[in-house]
């Protein structure tokens, strides 16, 4: 894709909480109005809507709530949170092809007060809102019922292969909680932890995932406004989409990636990195800030390796060296991540990347000009204009 073909011109969000006390459609509408206001645009300008297949808010209801005159592009991305950056790819494709002029990307959920992701439920259908989780039917009769349980099977093998310990994961969580502690929007604002705190948190899936390795089930909504790079010039604070990619590889499932030959490696992330770096000529050294989908700490490690920021098995040393911190070589999840800030299914990481490039983040990284957002198999690289 042409490097400056599409831009993010507005971001918006609701508060993140454990009980929003209102419906998802309202949450989405609030975030979208905030994002349009941020962009200096109105609902009359919007002609495209993109979300996740799993999002409960219907386009018809949003149009009704917002008063959008005409929608000429609507699409949804599968893979749950792993598709969370694919929405930017869809929006970019729409505005660069001319199918739409201004596309709103949104995700609204009541993931704590309503449909909890982490609940132990026995599914009655093999599919889950077309999120790509049909293969989880092979786990249900065995009590392997939650995202943490699905992914922990990969994580245990990863630990075994590379000699990684729970404490290695804990060091990353301490950093994430440090970032969250100074981000007023974060669930864990003002609540940093020590490695001992992490190590004494209870097991969720032993030996890979403790309570403090888990993202926060959250109520809230996030929205972004995408338009062409040329239209973006008329908006107050555009950030360019320098690259976007998606890589769903053969027999790599969304959360239960159990059948690839080497389950310690996220092959989708490896393929995604080729699209983001090798094809575009952007270097990993160019990345000033990384936002990486940390549903559970082991997945952060495996993506650091899959994306090529370090070699297989070396994420533990990368983390222990402080690379993810504000003074490190790859400041990562500066909002506290999904573990520290909250879990709007990954899209809150994208607006943190935009804030960093605008210079308005709570934990602002000095001279942040290029940011990567990676969600295992979908990702974007954003650039300051």
């Amino acid at each position: 894709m042409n490097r400056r073909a599409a831009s993010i011109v507005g971001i918006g969000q609701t508060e993140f909480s454990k009980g929003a006390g209102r419906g998802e459609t309202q949450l989405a509408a609030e975030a979208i109005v905030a994002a349009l206001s941020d962009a200096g645009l109105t609902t009359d300008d919007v002609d495209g809507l993109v979300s996740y297949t799993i999002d409960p808010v219907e386009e018809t209801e949003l149009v009704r709530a917002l008063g959008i005159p005409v929608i000429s592009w609507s699409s949804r991305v599968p893979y749950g949170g792993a598709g969370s950056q694919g929405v930017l790819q869809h929006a970019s494709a729409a505005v660069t092809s001319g199918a739409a002029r201004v596309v709103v990307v949104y995700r609204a959920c009541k993931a704590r007060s309503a449909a909890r992701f982490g609940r132990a439920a026995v599914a009655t259908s093999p599919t889950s809102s077309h999120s790509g989780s049909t293969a989880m039917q092979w786990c249900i009769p065995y009590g392997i019922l939650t995202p943490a349980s699905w992914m922990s099977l990969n994580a245990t093998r990863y630990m075994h292969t590379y000699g990684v310990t729970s404490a290695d994961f804990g060091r990353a969580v301490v950093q994430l909680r440090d970032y969250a502690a100074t981000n007023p929007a974060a669930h864990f604002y003002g609540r940093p932890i020590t490695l001992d705190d992490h190590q004494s948190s209870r097991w969720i899936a032993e030996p890979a995932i403790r309570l403090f390795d888990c993202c926060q089930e959250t109520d809230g909504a996030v929205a972004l406004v995408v338009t062409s790079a040329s239209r973006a010039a008329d908006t107050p604070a555009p950030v360019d989409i320098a690259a976007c990619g998606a890589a769903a590889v053969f027999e790599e499932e969304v959360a239960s990636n159990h059948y690839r030959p080497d389950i310690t490696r996220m092959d989708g992330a490896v393929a995604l990195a080729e699209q983001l770096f090798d094809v575009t000529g952007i270097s990993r050294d160019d990345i000033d800030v990384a936002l990486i989908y940390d549903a559970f700490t082991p997945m952060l490690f495996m993506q650091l390796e899959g994306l090529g920021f370090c070699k297989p098995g070396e994420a533990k040393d990368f983390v222990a060296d402080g690379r993810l911190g504000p003074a490190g070589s790859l400041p990562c999840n500066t909002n506290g991540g999904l573990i520290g800030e909250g879990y709007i299914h990954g899209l809150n990481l994208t607006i943190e990347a935009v804030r960093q490039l605008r210079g308005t983040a709570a934990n602002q990284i000095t001279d942040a000009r290029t940011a990567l957002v990676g969600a295992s198999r979908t990702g974007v690289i954003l650039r300051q204009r």
Partner: protein
Amino acid sequence: MTPVEGNPGEVTRPAPILTEDNKGYWYESARGRLGVQRCVQCGRLQHPPRPMCPVCHSLEQWIIELAGFGVIHSFSLLHHPRHPAFTYPVIAVLVDLDEGIRMASNLVCIDPAEVRIGMPVQVSFAPAKDDTAVPVFEPRTVTA
């Protein structure tokens, strides 16, 4: 084979979700057989089952009964959250079968603290609801 867990008359393990594409596998399983797809045309073994061979696109699949010997490729002791159908910690495993396929299952008849990657295992069958049964694994006691 003899069921290895569950009280008589009180089976709590949920039944498999039946689909057009998987019903052959679960039909065999309910009868105590580990029946895996093998492509009639190219001979590829595959799991989970699917409606088409991804290599040669044949629609014809044999169901082959496997011996059920393998090793633990990975495991996880699931502590939380809990579902009333299961006993905790649930021992979740990925088993690499000798024939070259992998499957998610449970390891039974073992102290959770003793589970190790690489451990040799053999198939057994655990009763599930609706008069079904699912393959589970136990530490190997016989020679493959």
